[in-house]
């Protein structure tokens, strides 16, 4: 079976308070008052959204609303401050991920407005540069002394690997020449291998014989089978 990158299921959100402030510093003199705090980072599970500035957060107990002044497009709802804050963070997380992967020309007017709010408060370049790229790659172990130490990818390039970079216990048993397919986490800037997050052995790939190759070549269609265009 070909590999697929595992779907992400969102774990609970966490909005970190400013470095010098803890949750207990949320407070007010009266029950009807908004409870205010500062927010220096936004983390949702393992994802860190680098904020450009410290933001001002408020929880309004009567309405059960969590608001952040700088993120005017988002309101979190919940009976408690924790629940409302988590709801808020998940809304930001969902909107950011949705819009991050849209091209600018695909954004509607509303989406442009939301993206403007998000990108003016979250440093998108820093976010992109810190999130590993996950690539499906095919290769084989090219060196094992005595454990796998080098991989040759199917484009011919070789890369050193350390056992601790592979999230699969039995990788240590792979012998030289063992073909595999893997999901590789790479640095988005340098493209260096950071981890192999999934790996599985594959059987030796089938190869076409010379006759089969010749038959295939003869049977490949040309673009003349595609719709005809014009010179306009």
């Amino acid at each position, binding site marked *: 079976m*070909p590999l697929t990158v595992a779907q992400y299921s969102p774990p609970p959100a966490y909005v970190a308070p400013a470095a010098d402030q803890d949750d207990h510093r949320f407070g007010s003199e009266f029950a009807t008052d908004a409870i205010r705090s500062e927010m220096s980072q936004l983390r949702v599970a393992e994802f860190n959204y680098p904020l450009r500035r410290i933001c001002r957060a408020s929880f309004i107990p009567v309405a059960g609303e969590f608001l952040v002044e700088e993120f005017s497009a988002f309101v979190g709802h919940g009976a408690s401050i924790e629940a409302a804050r988590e709801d808020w963070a998940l809304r930001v997380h969902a909107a950011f991920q949705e819009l*991050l*992967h*849209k*091209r*600018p*020309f*695909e954004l509607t007017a509303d989406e442009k407005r939301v993206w403007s709010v998000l990108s003016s408060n979250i440093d998108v370049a820093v976010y*992109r540069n810190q999130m590993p*790229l996950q*690539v*499906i*790659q*095919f290769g084989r172990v090219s060196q094992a002394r005595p454990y796998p130490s080098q991989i040759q*990818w*199917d*484009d*011919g*390039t070789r890369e050193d690997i350390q056992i601790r970079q592979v999230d699969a216990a039995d990788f240590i048993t792979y012998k030289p020449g063992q073909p595999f397919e893997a999901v590789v986490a*790479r640095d*988005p800037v340098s*493209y260096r291998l950071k981890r192999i997050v999934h790996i599985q052995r594959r059987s030796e*790939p*089938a*190869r*076409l014989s010379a006759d*089969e*190759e010749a038959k*295939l*070549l003869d*049977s*490949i*269609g*040309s*673009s*003349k*089978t*595609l*719709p*005809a*265009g*014009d*010179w*306009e």
Partner: protein
Amino acid sequence: MEIFCLDVGQGTCQVIMPGQRKAIVIDCGLQNDKLVLQFLQRTGVEYLERLIVSHSHDDHIGGAVSIMGAYQGRVGKYCFVQDHIFLRSAFWTRLKDLYANKRITRDQMVRLEVGDKPQVVWQDESRSIRLQTFSPSAVENLMAQDGEKPNATSAVLFLQSGANRVIFATDSEASQWKEIHRASGRKLKCDVLAVPHHGGRMHSSKRDLKWLYEDVLSATTAVVSAGTSNTHGHPRSDVIEAMTASGTNVLCTQITRRCNGNVRDLEHLRPGVLRPQTHLGRSSAVGDLTDSGHSRNVACAGTVRVEITATGVILERLADHQRAVDRLLRTATACPLCRVAPRVN
């Protein structure tokens, strides 16, 4: 829709992004270069409608294998020209392995050639955007299998979106344009031309160049994909001259010594002095020198982003780039080919 003319150094890659996390890749840059794959992933591309290689030279086909691995099961069709070195390419080896292991079907492989009319290689669901191939002809394709000049049978592609047009000329040669001109019977107008053969010789005389850029093609903007350290003399001054003489605005992905008084040290222009790096490109590497210590991968326009909107074509930060080239004219050694009469050839 967006089109990226990627700064891959001395090579070619253009990526068309029609939206919905899809892309069409035309050529893949240098051998074993993962820059194109990195670009596709950073821009969130999940599916390749077409993976097109115009011919089998390494600077066009080289980066394909890593893309084929990463996008396995997520490529609509693989389009190629079967020239005489194709069967020895890593691209074909990988393609037939995918077929042998039942990961692709025969119908996903398409040999590019045209009949009496251009063929539609891809079109969007509404059929308002279409990519056609203009060359090679079936006869040229057949000759290519025994020939020795893959450039002379490179695919020529034509993107049309409403009134806007982009031509991807890859490494096509003058003979192909004569055939295209004969078949079309008209001057081909386009907003953006990805210049043939990195602005190099196309087995053409100066007269051929004049004819090509005056009678055959009419481009508002031309993008030359060339690497700083290339040893082929790309782009040639007579090619740039022919384009600018016909009123075409010329951009190059990287600056070469030919724009710097023939001096190979261009470090004072790095990184991306002419245009800050806003998109991934080979010239984003800082302090990248050849083994002999000469500059390489110094941005001029860098990766060029073209957006086709309902109202026309926008080249991102074009005015900034033009101002930067004009400023360069005031430096001691600089003589940008796109601005001044050529001093070297």
